[in-house]
């Protein structure tokens, strides 16, 4: 399952440093004339993390916690407000469009919705061929062969090249999306909830495919999901996000065996267990996450936290290493450690 302690910073393929991304809400005409300031949604707030070579990093959190936004910043679909994203030591946020376009070959993305992520008018073969021809990664006379090879790599028949996306099921479409991402032979694969739109039986197939491909092609991968079981199965290391900030980060075994942050604890308690005797005594989380427009002061989890104290309302906890390879942003967890 997990095990590999890939935590040395030296071989980091990707390093995200203090990335913040906000969105301004559109103003109505009257407030705009009155020069009111638009309301700001802070989707990702000062997030730092790294991914080592050959590692699968899982990012979990409720919807709206900024995990997809963070991923889109790394893919540079969004430009963050501040921070650095170092890919192989180079800051991709400083790259100009020409340089960025060639660098994009090495960072590819798998999308959440297999129905909208494939152009409905492109036959599968043309879709894959376009990738190869735009970047000239393959001589024209070998492209057909390469397309067939890509399709077989994701477990599909080469005949699929002649069909339209509408002729495939969700799972098959997601395989096509994976083939398209792999056509560029990327170093880093960003998976944005790639199985949450699929049936459970198909989810397992796609996840196993991703894990096989990851080890075959020695890919580095960031896997975003709200489903703890999926993330536990696939990830070497896990990042737990809440309202745009990292709450806890550590290897999969540490997070699941010894969760330190109250938010992680309630998340784990909320996940369904196959064995009813394994039910934990931690109460399920109450209410919805607060609006990311009005983030609570102090620790942003304190209004819903079962073990919040007075100081949690004032003081923003910093992500600190509580044991080797295990980081927690909670002042209570630190206190209970006794240091």
């Amino acid at each position: 399952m997990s095990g590999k302690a890939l935590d040395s910073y030296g071989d980091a393929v990707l390093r995200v440093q203090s990335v913040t991304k906000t969105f301004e809400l559109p103003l109505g005409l009257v407030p705009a004339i009155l020069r009111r300031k638009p309301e700001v949604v802070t989707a990702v707030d000062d997030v730092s993390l790294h991914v080592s070579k050959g590692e699968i990093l899982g990012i979990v959190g409720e919807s709206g916690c900024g995990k997809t936004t963070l991923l889109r910043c790394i893919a540079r679909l969004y430009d963050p407000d501040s921070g650095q994203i170092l890919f192989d030591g180079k800051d991709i946020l400083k790259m100009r469009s020409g340089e960025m376009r060639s660098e994009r070959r090495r960072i590819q993305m798998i999308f959440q919705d297999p129905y909208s992520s494939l152009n409905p008018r492109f036959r599968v073969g043309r879709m894959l061929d376009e990738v190869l021809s735009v970047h000239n990664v393959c001589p024209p006379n070998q492209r057909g062969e390469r397309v067939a090879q890509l399709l077989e790599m994701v477990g599909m028949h080469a005949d699929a090249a002649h069909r339209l996306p509408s002729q495939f099921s969700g799972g098959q479409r997601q395989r096509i999306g994976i083939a398209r991402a792999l056509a560029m032979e990327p170093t880093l694969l960003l998976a944005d909830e790639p199985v949450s739109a699929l049936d459970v039986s198909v989810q397992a197939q796609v996840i196993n495919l991703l894990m096989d491909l990851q080890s075959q092609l020695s890919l580095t991968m960031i896997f975003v999901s709200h489903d703890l079981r999926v993330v536990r199965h696939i990830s070497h290391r896990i990042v737990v996000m809440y309202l745009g900030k990292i709450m806890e980060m550590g290897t999969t075994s540490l997070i699941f065996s010894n969760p330190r942050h109250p938010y992680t604890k309630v998340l784990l308690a909320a996940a369904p267990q196959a064995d009813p005797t394994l039910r934990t005594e931690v109460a399920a989380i109450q209410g919805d996450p607060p609006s990311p427009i009005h983030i609570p002061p102090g620790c942003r989890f304190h209004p819903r936290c079962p073990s919040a104290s007075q100081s949690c309302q004032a003081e923003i906890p910093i992500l600190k290493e509580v044991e080797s390879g295990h980081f927690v942003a909670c002042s209570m967890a630190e206190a209970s450690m006794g240091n």
Partner: protein
Amino acid sequence: MSTPLVTAEHTGLRGMLRSASGGRSILRRNPALVVGGVLVLVMGLVAVFSNQIAPYDPIAQDWNNILQAPNAQHLLGTDNFGRDVLSRIISATPLDLQVGVLSVLFPFLIGIVVGMLSGYYGGIVDNVIMRLVDVVIAFPFMVLIIAIIAVMGPGLQNAVIAITVASWIIYARIIRGEILVAKNLEYVMAAKTLGYGNLRIMAIHILPNVITPAIVFAAVDVVLNILVASSLGFLGLGVQPPQAEWGALISSGRGFMTTGWWISTFPGIAIVIAGVGFALLADGLADLLRPGGFKS
């Protein structure tokens, strides 16, 4: 694995053409396209061969046969100068179709390019273009056209220019709205992460998926523009006499509605047929252009 519901042979334009040999099945599956297409095609042929088809000289006056009701010699009767109404309607066809089609083609092309840039880039580009659109919208459509023709002088060419100036905004707004939705779809994001250029994304990935409403509107717009040209002809700002034009023909018969109803009625019916033809064509195209072909 599941079997596909639709086979590749029956999808898209190519599949449509391939099954064209079995014409009956198309007629059943997309009757609007067939009927509309035939009507427009017949009008096109009439327009091309108008000189050969017209039984009489459309501008020759015959003072012995004025205001004849429809009869064996003059199938649709004669007007107050003894000119054959059928011949005049036929000789007006190329002109009206030209105005209708050209005054759709230019706004269509301009509107699509401008709307695409506006929707795709957003921000300042979008703001500038949309304020320009607001300026054009601020004028009533017909008043703006009449004002432009008043400056430039009457005639076919100026009518097309005036209609273009007044109606490109509609296409720009249609396309902009569609692109605002489409540019956030995941296949567009996928195209960006694959490192495709903006032009490729706009023209090859987005545009074919959003152009259908504009094409459908264009087919309807042909009819509207024929009506505009007819209105201009009616007002004396369009084609000048003695050249025949459907609107002008209706106008010329309005003094004889009680004694010679056929002078105004038959050009009116010609406009209706053109309208129905293009409207059905629009409807059929909407079906045909959906991804994955038309309804089976």
